[in-house]
């Protein structure tokens, strides 16, 4: 299950940011999305955040101190999304 989610997130990143020249498969699951890795910046993070909320229905709390760690890699994002979904399901 998890690997399917990771793949969806990779495609979401590529599509949201118009990453021409970079295919979803080119983004390593543990590759750093920011800094020396893929090189995304804070505006990219904002855009990905919006799309993640839309696509997976998870809330992103911009005040959350751990926010940057959720966005550190595709794997971390997938974990964040699946936890967020579980948390929401439990709340219902």
């Amino acid at each position, binding site marked *: 299950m998890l690997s399917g989610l990771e793949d969806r997130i990779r495609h979401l990143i590529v599509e949201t*940011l*118009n*990453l*021409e*020249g*970079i295919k979803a498969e080119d983004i390593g699951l543990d590759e750093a999305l920011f800094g020396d890795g*893929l*090189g*995304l*910046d804070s*505006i*990219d993070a904002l855009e990905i955040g919006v799309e993640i909320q839309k696509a997976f229905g998870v809330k992103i709390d911009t005040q959350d101190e751990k926010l940057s760690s959720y966005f550190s890699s595709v794997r971390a994002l997938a974990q964040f999304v699946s936890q967020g979904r579980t948390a929401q399901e439990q709340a219902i």
Partner: protein
Amino acid sequence: MTMSDWSFLDAYAASDPMVRRGQKILSANDVRLEAVRLKALLVHGDDPVFLYCEDSGNFLAGLIAALSAGRDVLLPGHAAPGFLVEIGATGPLLLTDQTGLDAGATIISVEPQHGVVAPSLEIDTGATIGFFTSGSTGAPKTCIKSQAQILSEAAAQLVLWGAPCGPVIGTVSHQHIYGLLFRVFWPLMARASVEAMRQDMWEDVIFHAREGCVFVSSPAHLSRIPDGLSLVHRPAHIFSSGGPLAFAASRDAFIKFGQVPIEVLGSTETGGVAWRQQHGEGEHWTPLPQVEISSDENGALAVRSPFAGGDDFVVMGDQVTRHEDGRFSLHARLDRIVKIEGKRVSLPRVEEALKGLAAITDAVAIDLPERNGALGAVVVVAPEATAELSALGAFRFSRVLRRHLSARLEPMELPRLWRFVERVPENAQGKRLAADMRALFSDSSNDVPRILERNISEMVAEFSLELNPDLRWFAGHFPEQPILPGVAQLHIASVLAEEVWGFVATGSDMARVKFRHVMQPGAKVLLTLTRNGDERLDFRYLMNGEVAASGAIKGIEA
């Protein structure tokens, strides 16, 4: 001289030289004889005629003939077959010296004649002269001028710049107002001769230069003067119009030709407005004689002059600051302030920030309606930064640039989409059209034709292509007669080269790109890609066994 006075034409005696075509001299009588012949063909009918000539002597004969026959004249800016069909320039209504354009066209040819002396023709002063400008949508738009508008400006020009004392050599066409005024009317009003041929290469301009010569050029040419030209005769004047001339280009022209170019600000609608010579960067503009300058509440330049045709101020798209001495500074075009996600963003400001980066030598910022109004950047990377670009790849490199930019720009001003090019695309008048910039960002689906057959080896790849009519390239260019634009031909070659060899295009070698025949929907073409070293790729499109286009693409192996 009154404003619509053509008496300068009668000032030429029959044997006076009126046109120089290389070594050949055409007399006023030669021009008149051809005009008389053509007029007889044109007196019956009142539709406007389309005049397109490569040779300014033929053009002059056609113009005199049409105006004296009382016909309005429209001047197509170029002669792409699809364009001529779209504007209705077909059959005998098309007056041209180009035999290949339309079998039914009225052909103009001024040649030296002996014996017969032609009568002088009387111009019908009510007939108009119209130009085609590219509207904001890309569809051609006409701009109709009275003879008085054009003649009054030419007369003012003669007063301001004096008579030309040598050949007036142009790199621009007389089919546009600037070329028409400077290359045709100015010498005629001074009873000098018109240089028939437009010169595209600086080497040829230099070859034709004589004592007292004048160069009538544009930013496109003046920013590309080759090194090592051996100039024997310095020009007395260099003119530039059609777009802003960068200070560096002005400086370069001064170093190579010994004259600071005189830049003329104007538009087809207004005619000439102001001029300047950049002895220093950002020199102010001086209004031309008879031109009144004002500005509206947005700071937009407004112009009233006999050349602009009336008693009312015409508002132009440029933002200006007027100074007490009557001169003004020119700022951004107002249409270059766009809304990005609801916030006003000045594209020139973004461009300035981009050009301020050491890694960037030239840049255009553009809003992209097709991409939800996102901001795009077309940039030329400095030679010392190309290694970083190829090491990081386009995307990561764009983020490095964005990081640098964030020191100066707000988040909304930071370009989201980036295109790295060898040279910013410009049209024949040296203008950077929004449509051409946006084309660089168009959705990459549906942009490669159907491949019927491919044949690939290590050095050469051949593709039989069918130009399916639903290719997105056919959508914007001339709705009634779509053609495959040059930018598409380059793009298709680049995409296929990347697919075959992992060759990533970084730009094209425009000096070597030649478009010979138009390619239309449904055409079958053979594209041959040939690797030429690691950093270059030659391409050639064959249609019915003839070369339709060819050129070179620069790039890197991925």
